């Protein structure tokens, strides 16, 4: 303990020494975005990358509310969708009036669309946090989603508002017809938005947002009005959600009521929570995973939403810190040099845990395909949903897997206890 305490007290004011590593992470991220389409150049990959990029901006904007300020919104897609409509209307206006605004500036108008609505609705919404805020957000979400079908002149009814991104003035010779160019436009806005949202967490407002999340009562006694803090955070979240919506409008050349509905709101909550709200990069991981699963699973199974639900429940119950929380748990162990003591218990646990997962998949697919009769292909092994053999295999995998997996999980917990005690003794864990 003593050695650690002296070393931390001598540490320079943050970030200081971590600076190089900090900028390194961002530069690697940017480099990856540039290089990615050169490695995976198929049309399908480009479409996936574009969607993932948009999802990341959207999830990061949601985390300004959930992770940074402690506001659980069930209607965040409202700002996303309105941003999309604003972008579409702007693109059409640019074309019809011949304004000299090229496509890369359009997401800014999407952001303004999301921001203006947040500014109007936010003051009332953010008066209270907690359940009151959650309920109002749900109500506003439904209100706007249903309005979008009623107010046809603005939202275009069921069909939505279409646009043509290539009709806008060219910039640097780019027409933004090919998906590759759209991908780079999205990547550019992703980097810009991510940097801006990260910077926001490092401002006085960003820090006080965290304080409001932790203890809104106490904030009032250090000079701050938590209502104003929540309102400002809500406006920023609305703006960046609008940027994401604008990018979607550019990507699909359409905005319709599906963009601002409850499903979108649920999906962003889902991505952010699975990724982990306590760390800035959590929602990035969540958005990548959820979008990837969404694109991948829909081709494999009709029951893909069921898997989402299971993953979500699993994370909420066993890893409320999300993927980022699970990863960051290991940091003190790495620093203390005790990570290697828990790795063997992980390796032992993999086998029964995978068996359990296969059992669950087999059970779900059996139920889903029973009447249809199409075969289940699990890692190259075919199973017939009507065959009792399949049922027995599924039952054995679920029951046996769960039983053995539990034992191995207890071993992990033991190994963790020992490793973290050592880490605590060495002063890497409080």
């Amino acid at each position: 303990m003593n050695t650690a305490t002296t070393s931390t007290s001598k540490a320079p004011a943050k970030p200081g020494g971590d600076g190089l590593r900090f900028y390194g992470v961002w530069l690697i991220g940017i480099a990856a975005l540039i290089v990615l389409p050169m490695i995976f150049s198929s049309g399908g990959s480009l479409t996936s990358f574009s969607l993932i990029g948009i999802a990341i901006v959207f999830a990061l904007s949601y985390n300004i509310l959930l992770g940074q300020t402690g506001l659980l919104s069930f209607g965040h897609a409202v700002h996303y969708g309105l941003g999309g409509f604003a972008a579409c209307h702007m693109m059409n206006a640019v074309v019809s009036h011949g304004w000299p605004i090229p496509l890369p500036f359009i997401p800014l108008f999407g952001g303004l669309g999301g921001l203006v609505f947040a500014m109007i609705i936010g003051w009332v919404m953010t008066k209270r946090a907690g359940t009151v805020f959650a309920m109002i957000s749900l109500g506003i979400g439904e209100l706007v989603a249903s309005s979008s079908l009623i107010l046809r002149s603005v939202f275009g009814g069921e069909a939505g508002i279409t646009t043509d991104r290539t009709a806008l003035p060219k910039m640097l010779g780019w027409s933004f017809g090919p998906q590759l160019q759209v991908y780079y436009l999205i990547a550019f806005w992703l980097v810009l938005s991510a940097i801006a949202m990260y910077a926001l967490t490092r401002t006085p407002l960003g820090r006080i947002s965290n304080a409001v999340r932790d203890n809104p009562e106490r904030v009032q006694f250090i000079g701050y009005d938590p209502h104003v803090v929540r309102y400002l955070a809500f406006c920023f979240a609305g703006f960046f959600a609008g940027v994401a919506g604008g990018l979607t409008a550019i990507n699909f050349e359409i905005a319709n009521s599906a963009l601002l509905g409850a499903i979108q709101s649920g999906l962003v909550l889902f991505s952010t929570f699975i990724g982990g709200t306590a760390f800035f990069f959590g929602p990035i991981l969540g958005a990548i995973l959820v979008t990837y699963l969404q694109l991948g699973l829909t081709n494999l199974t009709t029951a893909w939403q069921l898997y989402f639900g299971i993953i979500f429940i699993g994370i909420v119950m066993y890893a409320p810190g999300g993927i980022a929380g699970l990863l960051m748990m290991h940091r003190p162990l790495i620093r203390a040099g005790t990570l290697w003591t828990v790795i063997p218990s992980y390796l032992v646990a993999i086998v029964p845990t995978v068996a359990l997962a296969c059992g669950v998949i087999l059970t779900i697919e059996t139920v889903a395909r029973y009447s249809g009769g199409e075969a289940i292909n699990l890692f190259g092994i075919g199973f017939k949903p009507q065959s009792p053999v399949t049922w027995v295999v599924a039952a054995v995998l679920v029951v046996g897997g769960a039983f053995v997996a539990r034992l191995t999980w207890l071993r992990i917990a033991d190994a963790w206890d020992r490793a973290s005690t050592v880490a605590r003794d060495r002063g890497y864990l409080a």
Partner: protein
Amino acid sequence: MTAAIEVRAVEKRFGNVGIIRDLNLSVAQGERHAIIGPNGAGKSTTFNLISGHIKPTSGEVRLNGDVISGLQPFEINRRGLSRSFQVTNVFARMSVWENVRCAVLWATGHRYAFWKNVDSLPEVRERTAQILDDIHLTHRRDVPAGLLTYAEQRELEIGITIASGATVVMLDEPTAGMSNAETERAVALIRRLTEGKTLVIVEHDMSVVFGLADRISVLVYGHIIASGTPEEIRGDPKVKEAYLGEEAH
């Protein structure tokens, strides 16, 4: 000279129950004033009434001559009154450093700024470092506040309270639940940190009260029955009967 805190005929009722009845209290500038009284006398309620946490049913509270009753807690805080809480009330998931820094931000004029990097504000950094040094928590600066020991959390609570540089500081049972050694340390800390400020303190430990306070007010059933120097209070028959007498048995 106007009093730092002036409470005039304040009444607080919850439904039909009068918790505070005709409360009158005057705390002079620079005075260390202790409020004592048996459990349930309304000491914390008095704190809540002055700091704006709850609003009086009638009567008024003045801070440096200005009426503050009816204002929001943050408005009162911005006028230079800061308080701590009996139950530790910190930002649990944030580090010790962040806890204190948040309490420094408003007073250094950065308010809701979203265009400044919080790490590159020299006056904020210096003041935060100074306060951490004052409360002896520099070595724990990166630990989440929720993981501190109880005594450390109480010290952090005091640090957050004084961080804004408020001229009127109110501490609600700062040594509650502390060991003798910890109490001694805390009293020395309070004495040093509130030098030149007005201090109002609620405390059960009589050695702390009589060691620290210039004046003492005795609150019984929501009413102040006596107010005076420690000697006067010790000799007051009403106080003996209502409070000290009972304690002595």
